[in-house]
Structures are given as C-alpha cells and as structure tokens.
C-alpha cells in the first residue's frame, strides 16, 4: 500500500529518429520513437522520457510532430527534454502533448527560467535535469559539481546546492545523471543519488550507469531514488520492462505490476 517507484525508459532522438539504436526482435521500424514508446508503454513503463538531441531548427519541428504522435497513442506521462531554452519552447512542447519538460543547460545559464516556468506552467511539469560529476579527491569528503555540454564543461556549482536552489525556484522533480557513471554500465552513483535525494523535498530520477536489474534496485533502496531511468538495457533487449519490474518487486521495491 504505497506509492510505486517508477521505471522510465529514455528515448534519445535526432530529427525524429531514435538513436543509440534499439534492437527489438520483432519491431517494424527500430528508429520510430512512436512505435517504441508505444511498445514500452504496453510493457508497463511508468513514464517515457523523450530526449531530443537534434541540433537544427528544422529538426526541432519534426520533434514537435513526434511528441504529438506519441501523446496521441501513449497514455502514460511523457517528459520531453533537450534544447528547452525559453518559455516558448516549454509551451510548444506542452501544447504538443508533453506532460513535463526537462530543462538542463538553460537552467544553468538562466536559473530564472525555472522560476518563471514553474510559475507559469506549474511545478508539476518542470523537471530540472542536472549532470553531476565527482570533483573530490580520493579520501576527501564527497563533492559533486554540475557540468554542461555532455560532461565536458565544469560550472563550479556544487550539485547539492544546485538541486536545493532549483527546488526553491520551483522544480517539481530532478533528473540526476552521473557523468562519471553514464555509459559505464557499472550502476548508478549511489552516494550522489542519496546525497541529492536526502537534500531536497521533490522526487529524484536516477540516471546514468545502469548495466543490470540489480542496479535499478540499488538505485531505489540505496540511492533513495523515486524513479530510475535507463536506455540501453531496454533498447538492446537485454531486459524487458516486465522483467525489470518483476525483479525489483521481488527485491522488495514497491512497483506497479
């Protein structure tokens, strides 16, 4: 009898096509985000995150159409991130059918955007995505900093202070990616997750590093994450959403089965 922890598959899209490859055995078009989103929803995904990595303006119009198509067929919450810089960008995505938008780099360069956006559209639809990297040396007390540009540019901002500030500004949720762990398949940065989760009032989505199903369990039980986001373990068919939810439930995590 409790709120379920969430599993959120993430689709990285470029010009309306899923990149980083999706390998379902029986899928018609492995690059079609609409079909993939529908597949994940049918399999029991609790939400879908759609990350737009399109650089060009024309490409972004494709993204709007894709979000519209997904929203017309998938009746679970949909978060759209990538390239959200202005209130107008947010309005466009919400009007296209997104339930939440994730703001990343723009929040670092213009924190007021988060305040304005949550006041305008409500905190419930404003997710602040933060990319954090450990900067403390071995033996020192743990310290993480916010990085931009895919983990290449340090900002000098302490991750815990940043999370607290963003919540104060009205973020309704935090999508926390460990740049040390992203792509390693060695599990979430649990200490980072715990530190952020325990420092703020809003839910935390853990991201970066999932290699197996136990990593998802650890993210919740040890990292105190309210939701876990993963891409490759689901895209490449290593595990299905059903298997992940079943496994997490067996390990004592409350899930929607």
């Amino acid at each position, binding site marked *: *009898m*409790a*709120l*379920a*922890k*969430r599993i959120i598959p993430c689709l990285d899209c470029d010009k309306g096509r899923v990149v980083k490859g999706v390998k379902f055995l029986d899928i018609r078009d492995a690059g079609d985000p609409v079909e993939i989103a529908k597949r994940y*929803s049918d399999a029991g995904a*609790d939400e879908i995150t759609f990350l737009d990595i399109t650089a060009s303006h024309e490409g972004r119009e494709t993204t709007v159409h894709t979000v519209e198509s997904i*929203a*017309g*067929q998938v*009746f*679970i*919450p949909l978060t759209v991130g990538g390239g959200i810089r202005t209130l107008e960008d947010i309005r466009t995505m*919400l*009007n*296209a*059918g*997104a*339930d939440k938008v994730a703001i990343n780099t723009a929040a670092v360069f213009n924190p007021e955007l988060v305040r304005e956006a949550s*006041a305008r*559209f*409500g*905190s*419930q*639809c404003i997710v602040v995505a933060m990319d954090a990297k450990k900067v403390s040396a071995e033996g020192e007390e743990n310290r993480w900093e916010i990085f931009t540009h895919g983990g290449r540019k340090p900002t000098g901002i302490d991750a815990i202070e940043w999370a607290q500030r963003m919540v104060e500004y009205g973020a*309704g*949720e935090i999508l926390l990616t460990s740049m040390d762990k992203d792509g390693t398949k060695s599990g979430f940065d649990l200490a980072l997750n715990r530190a952020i989760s325990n420092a*703020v*009032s*809003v*839910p*935390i989505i853990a991201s970066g590093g999932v290699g197996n199903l136990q990593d998802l369990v650890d993210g919740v039980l040890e990292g105190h994450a*309210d*939701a876990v986001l993963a891409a490759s373990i689901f895209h490449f068919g290593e595990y299905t959403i059903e298997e992940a939810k079943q496994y997490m439930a067996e390990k004592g995590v409350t899930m*929607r089965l």
Partner: protein
Amino acid sequence: MNKVAVIDYGMGNLHSVAKALEHVGKNTKVIVTSDAKTILSADRVIFPGVGAIRDCMAEIRRLGVDEIVQEAMQNKPLLAICVGMQALMERSEENNGVDCLGLAKGQVKLFANEFSGAKPLLRELDGELLKVPHMGWNIVEQCDQHPLWAGIENNTRFYFVHSYYITLGAEEKASGVSHYGVDFTAAFSKGNVFAVQFHPEKSQHGGLQLLSNFLSWDGAN
C-alpha cells in the same frame, strides 16, 4: 454524436485529456473551450486543472467558469480532474489560503513533509520520509460501486501528481481513497459530478476505462 466539452481556462495542458477522450470515445466530439454556450450545450463536461490554485481560481472567476461549472453540474455529467477537483471545494490552504468554488463541502490541504517545516512529518508506515509532490502511480481503493469504476479492478494504480489533497466535509462521500503518509480522498461523487485527484488520461488502462465509463455515464449514481 457524444459532445464532450473540456473547459479551457488557460491553465496547463488540456491536450492529454482531449487526446485520451478521442482515443476511447466512439462517435465522440471533444471540444476544448471556455465558451459558456458551447460548454452548456455539450452532453458532458470535463473540468481539468493544473498549477497553482490561486492562478486557477483567478482565471476561473475572470472567465466566468465558476458559473458555467455550477450550471453544468445541475443537468449533465461532469468529471473534475486534479486541481479541477480541488477547485470544487470550499477553501485551499495553498498560496496562503484561497477561496474555492464551494460546490462541495471540504478543504484542500498540503502534504506536509520535513521540508515544509510542518509537523508531524509525512512518513510512510515503515518510517520512510515522503517526497512532495506526490508523484507517480498509487493504489486507489474504491469505496462504492459508482458507474465510473465499472470494469476497473479495485486497488488499481492511477497516476498522481499533486502537493495538495482534499478532505471532504461530513456531508460528502468519498468514492476512492489512497494513502500517502495519510489517507486521502482520491475520488468522490456528488450527483452528476465525479471528481478525481489522479490523472485518468495518464493512467493507461485503468484511466482510459474510467474515461470510457464517463462517456457513457448518464449522471445518475
């Protein structure tokens, strides 16, 4: 043709609910509007809402939606969702206290957690400290046999996202309850009105079933 009006008072995303209704509705026309005539000539009305209650109430009053809702609920089925449900109550403690429509007896209260400085702390039975907003899929225990629950298994999980919850006055009756640190009303019915705190349009099978039930509900209990 089943005409459903989704009341648009400029607060938040109504596309999700419109798309979900179009998905489940056969021979259904969904109109997103704030026009009183259109709403009052529809067969059914959806009263949605997201965001801060003060802003919602300001727009509701400015556009005359208060009177539209009051009139609509006299003679046609009306489904209130999330802040739409909260707006039906007498008063909300959000934004330092806001008067609501008072169309049902009850109050709107904050899920107080350790960060809001309120006591007692919001904890789960096992001692876990709870995040606010209450966001995600939670169990709804059905308290009655309301037609909108038809075909939905008891204790189905629905998708919630809210920081405030309603407490009904003694005159009103809950149709569904959930638990998040405290027991709270997840759904109630009153004549032609069915109100839910969760988002049926985002709750997959259970939510779509509820919307489908609403499209064929004649307003009687």
